[in-house]
């Protein structure tokens, strides 16, 4: 056991939690405004692919990161238009975006790099392994402050709880929701970019492997609050780090059983076994002016 609880696992936990935290903070914006964001997975993939590609071409991971954010915003815009303007079912649209992001990077990589989904390897010097982690954890107090101490945060919370009240007070519900969803796209994309140009050195097909869904689970686990969500992300990061560490150590427990612990935990929490969960009241309902 002492093999496991050491400094390296703390570092691993932070590294593994960072992308989750970025995506989860993005999800927080969107969901607090009332728009369900299942598409975090696809948004991360968009960010990962774009930043890897642009870093390869431009030689600079910062340009890559910027491009990744732009891609995330663009894809989030599609989600926003479908959900807010067309009032489409938000879960269905989110799922569609995830499927889209499974396919589009492969098509583009075929055209650009003649590969079946991967981008070319990026040299070590062009990676940013630490900056996104810093961004991720700095986000937590910033998001907290934004949510509870600024006018925009007030409006965001109001729109997610009672959009009609906000509307009659003169707040533009669609504008707030668009901003929220686009922000979630930007942040999730940074999370994805960290995966491709921070943690590893290229993009591979479906490299997020479900992290977007886990980020959403962490957000729900964290009751849509910044600090609790961060703790949830750390917990899930720890589970992943532990499972990697234990791979060599305990041959009697198959690694898959450890890997599924975060998933089981999420279901347990969702069932309310660890405190009641109160979602933003208007979550998932398109707003129609009466």
């Amino acid at each position, binding site marked *: 056991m002492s093999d496991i609880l050491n400094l390296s696992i703390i570092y691993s936990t932070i590294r593994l939690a960072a992308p989750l935290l970025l995506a989860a903070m993005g999800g927080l914006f969107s969901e607090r405004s009332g728009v369900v964001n*299942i598409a975090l997975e696809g948004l991360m993939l968009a960010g990962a692919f774009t930043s890897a590609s642009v870093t390869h071409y431009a030689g600079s991971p910062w340009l890559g990161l910027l491009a990744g954010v732009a891609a995330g915003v663009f894809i989030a815009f*599609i989600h926003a238009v*479908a959900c807010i303007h*067309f*009032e*489409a*079912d938000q*879960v*269905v*649209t989110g*799922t*569609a*975006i995830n*499927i*889209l992001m*499974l*396919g*589009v990077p*492969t*098509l*583009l990589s*075929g*055209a650009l790099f*003649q590969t*079946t989904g991967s981008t070319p390897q990026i040299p070590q010097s062009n990676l940013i392994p630490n900056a996104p982690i810093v961004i991720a954890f700095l986000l937590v107090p910033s998001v907290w402050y934004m949510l509870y101490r600024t006018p925009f945060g007030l409006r965001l919370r109001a729109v997610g709880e009672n959009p009609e009240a906000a509307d009659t007070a003169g707040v533009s519900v669609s504008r707030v929701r668009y901003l929220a969803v686009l922000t979630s796209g930007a942040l999730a994309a940074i999370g994805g970019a960290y995966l491709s140009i921070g943690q590893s050195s290229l993009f591979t097909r479906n490299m997020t492997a*479900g992290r977007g*869904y886990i980020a*959403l*689970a962490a957000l*729900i686990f964290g009751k849509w609050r910044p600090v609790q969500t961060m703790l949830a992300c750390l917990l899930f990061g720890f589970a992943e780090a532990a499972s990697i560490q234990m791979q060599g150590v305990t041959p009697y427990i*198959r690694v*898959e*059983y450890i*890997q*599924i612990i975060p*998933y*089981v935990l*999420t*279901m347990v929490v*969702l*069932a*309310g076994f660890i405190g009641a969960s109160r979602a933003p009241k208007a979550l998932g309902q*398109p707003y129609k002016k009466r």
Partner: protein
Amino acid sequence: MKYLRHLALPLIAVLAAFIAGGIVVLLIGDDPVYTYRLLIGSALSWPDGIGYTLFYATPLIFTGLAVAVGFRCGLFNIGAEGQLTIAALATAWIGFTFSNLSAWMLVPLACAAAILAGAVWAAIPGVLKARFGSHEVINTIMMNFIAAGVTSALTQSYFKDPGDLILQTHSIAAAAHIPRLGRFIPGMPERIPTNIAFLLAIAACVLVYVFLWKTRWGYEIRATGANPKAAEYGGISVRRQIMLAMVVSGGLAGLVAVNEVMGYRYRYYQGFSPQYGFTGIAVALLGRNHPAGVLVAAIFFGALTRGGLFVDIFTENVSKDLVLVLQALVILFVAAEALFRGARAS
């Protein structure tokens, strides 16, 4: 006559998706007309095109029905992927464990295992929703991941042939094989994997139709999906309906195992499903959650899958992922216009 109105929306969505897809093809440097001609042509040729189209359509009919039944009760079953995975392992296990039984006993037994395994895997998120109110979307997604992990671990530990480098189980007994359609249809060779599971899929469509619209259980499920408060008022137990819908949905998804394990690979192969579960969502939406629509939509997507393989090989840059993109676009367009029809009861 009123059915024509229902057709308009899916047709427009498909058309729009193809146009958008065509633009994507242009952007990556290929000729959309050539690509689409290849896509559709290779799906309609005889015997290979139609044969393979129906083969790819079969699992989509099952998952499409599964998702559709869920939607009719107001539930979003994204877990078809996990349900069919568990079912496939269960079916294979029956197939190689009870190898001494005759075909008359083994085939129904294996089919029953498929349905039961899928139903149980769906029942878990069903109970969590019915008893605790926790939303089935996240739970079913989690169950998908858990299913992948559990089947991988079990196969690796217990069911693999020693020395086999591929993650797959032992072969099932010959008595558990179901015949390919080529045996009955002149002109279709038996190398084409379309098998009698396709007929089972059509039968499932009929059964689901009768179940939903001609029985009182179906009435109760649809009422629950349309307005749970009114259903409760009408003496319907919403919890029981959620369980019933999830169990039926899971069982339908599990039938994919019959096509895959008993009719094609004759074993369980880890990762055999090219996102049948997710594609089932597209099929259900396009088919307006109605068995007839699901049948047509599944065949359409089956044709796309078949065509996608050819497009992959015979074009410069376009890969079979074009099909994924087309599917996603179809879902988006259907969802955006579905506000007029209430395609998803919620």
